[in-house]
């Protein structure tokens, strides 16, 4: 059963990736502007003579895809089959996958941390808001949740940035870690990593916290209204155990959302990365676009899309595993 489901998902996912890759390929190739002209201008501005700049730029042509659009497409797709995403133009001679993965690390870690942090806090506060839903505190929690949920990430990022760099400059607003620390598992380096990631993580956590509190609140309210909770109470089940009943049932649907939002995280942090100059995928994508690095753009799209698709699959399968109703099939009817 599980294997069949998985196979179906994978097949559909592959088709999806194929289509999305194709669409993004043509969209990306239709971006006007010549990467070489831009680089030429830069070199000239840096004082290189026009002729030398011209020749230097020509070298880069070697890294740009050649042939007609259709040929490029065929090349690109056949490259994909070999898991080859092509060469970066931005960093000539380096494969797109290398660039992607080194950037992805810096998106995944903070966003993952932010999401999990906000998930934990949001879930707890959501339970609280649900229990206190008729009181003032519940109202405040819910409205602040909606507000945080509604406010775009960049507003939060800018606000936090303004507070922590202009008003009380205590946190670094760009970079990943102090280079003076030897990377590795040592307190200094890890402390530095945390220090540098604080603002992005905090922003991401704040931005997603609202969603969790809302989702958890409504989920808990639903479960609290379910008969089996009252039934458990009427059987004299201990409060702690009843609370676990509520929590487990309420959190179950949230795991799906969690999986999905983890899928979205690859593409989700452009603003935050731009504002805090955190060198993740978002910043890389902007760089790729600005430099017309088609292969890099395509790779980023593919990675983001694949992450979403995988997250969807995982969410579904995860649900199959943890929810006994789906596991044995009734819930799917």
């Amino acid at each position, binding site marked *: 059963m599980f294997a069949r489901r998985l196979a179906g998902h994978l097949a559909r996912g592959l088709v999806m990736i194929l289509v999305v890759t194709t669409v993004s390929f043509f969209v990306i190739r239709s971006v006007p502007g010549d990467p070489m002209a831009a680089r030429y201008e830069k070199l000239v501005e840096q004082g290189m003579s026009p002729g030398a700049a011209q020749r230097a730029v020509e070298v880069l042509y070697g890294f740009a895809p050649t042939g007609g659009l259709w040929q490029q497409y065929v090349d690109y797709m056949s490259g994909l089959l070999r898991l080859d995403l092509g060469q970066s133009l931005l960093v000539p001679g380096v494969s797109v996958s290398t660039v992607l993965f080194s950037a992805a690390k810096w998106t995944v870690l903070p966003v993952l941390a932010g999401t999990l942090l906000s998930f934990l806090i949001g879930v707890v506060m959501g339970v609280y808001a649900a229990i206190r839903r008729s009181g003032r505190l519940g109202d405040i929690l819910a409205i602040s949740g909606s507000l945080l949920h509604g406010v775009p990430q960049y507003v939060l990022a800018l606000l936090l940035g303004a507070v922590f760099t202009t008003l009380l400059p205590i946190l670094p607003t760009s970079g990943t870690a102090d280079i003076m620390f030897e990377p590795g598992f040592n307190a200094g380096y890890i402390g530095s990593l945390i220090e540098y990631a604080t603002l992005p993580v905090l922003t991401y956590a704040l931005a997603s916290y609202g969603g969790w509190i809302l989702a958890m609140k409504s989920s808990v309210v639903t479960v609290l209204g379910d008969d089996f909770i009252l039934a458990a109470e009427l059987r004299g089940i201990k409060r702690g155990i009843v609370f676990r009943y509520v929590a487990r049932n309420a959190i179950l649907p949230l795991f799906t959302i969690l999986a999905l939002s983890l899928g979205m995280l690859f593409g989700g942090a452009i603003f935050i990365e731009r504002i805090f100059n955190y060198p993740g995928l978002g910043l890389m994508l902007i760089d790729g676009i600005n430099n017309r690095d088609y292969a890099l753009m395509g790779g980023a799209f593919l990675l983001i899309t694949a992450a979403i698709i995988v997250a969807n699959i995982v969410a579904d399968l995860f649900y199959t595993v943890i929810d006994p109703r789906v*596991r044995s099939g009734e819930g799917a009817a």
Partner: protein
Amino acid sequence: MITGKNITKTFRQRGGVLAGREVRALRGVDFAIEKGGAASFIGESGCGKTTLGRIIAGLETHDSGEITIDGTPMSPLKPRHREPYFRRIQLIHQDPYSALNPTRTIHQTLNAPLVLRARQTGRPRSWVDERAEELLALVGLDPAYVLPRYPHQLSGGMRQRVVIARALTVDPDMLVADEAVSMIDVSLRLGILALLKDLRERLGVSVLFITHDVATARYIGDDGELYVIYRGQVVERGHVETIISAPVHPYTQSLLSAIPVLHGLEQPGEQRVVPTEALDESHHDAGCLFARRCPFRTERCESELPVLGHGEGTPQEHACLHPERRSVVATPIGRG
């Protein structure tokens, strides 16, 4: 006049985990309902009553078999051409709460089909309002009170009446009432049943009544026919009173025995039949579908599938290899 021959329906789960699982909801059901007639389908939960009702009302398609409405077989017709026939068969939902649109007033709810009707029959607009009031009065409601209200402002019984009035807007030949009273308060149930009966008598609408409570089936009309369905198969068919007083199929007997006895007013039937097991739809046996649960089964029952037919000496048709009349029905004290 609507007849069905050998209607079958199998549900196949598509997609999801259950993909491939089959439920044989109907296994070759025959029926015939006269114009102005009444028929009741009874049976346990999940035995296919609703499915049959929906097929008859044209809301569901069947797999094989033939439905004939007023002599016209439906299967050769394109879905579009079937509609006018099925329009004349209206389904009354079990749940009057969901059967009415909560965002529309009763006036709006009745108006829409009436306007259509007026257009079809070339009647003037003014007829619509008149007709709405007329129909509400017919189902025993005060139009002035009901019309401007939203469904949530009405009681369950009133809602069910509105549902019936709405079904009447298209002048149907037949009403299919699927558990139409099971969600209505006890004290009001009889009112709805009486209304259905009244409509039969006054408008000549035939009524197909679906229930798992045999007692209510009587109230649609004493000339009604009763179909006892078990796992998609009709196991006993005949006149209501005949079957109640002299059921021969052990399943029918189980159903009748299950009706609570009003101790003090009634005394229980002497030969009450209790099935030996609970219903298990997934079970596939070669023989009689009821055999596993039947207290009277023989070896023959496990291999031979009985078909519906007239047994010797019984006025009703039945599908039992060992038909035997048992007195299972409670009798009022003092009448014997």
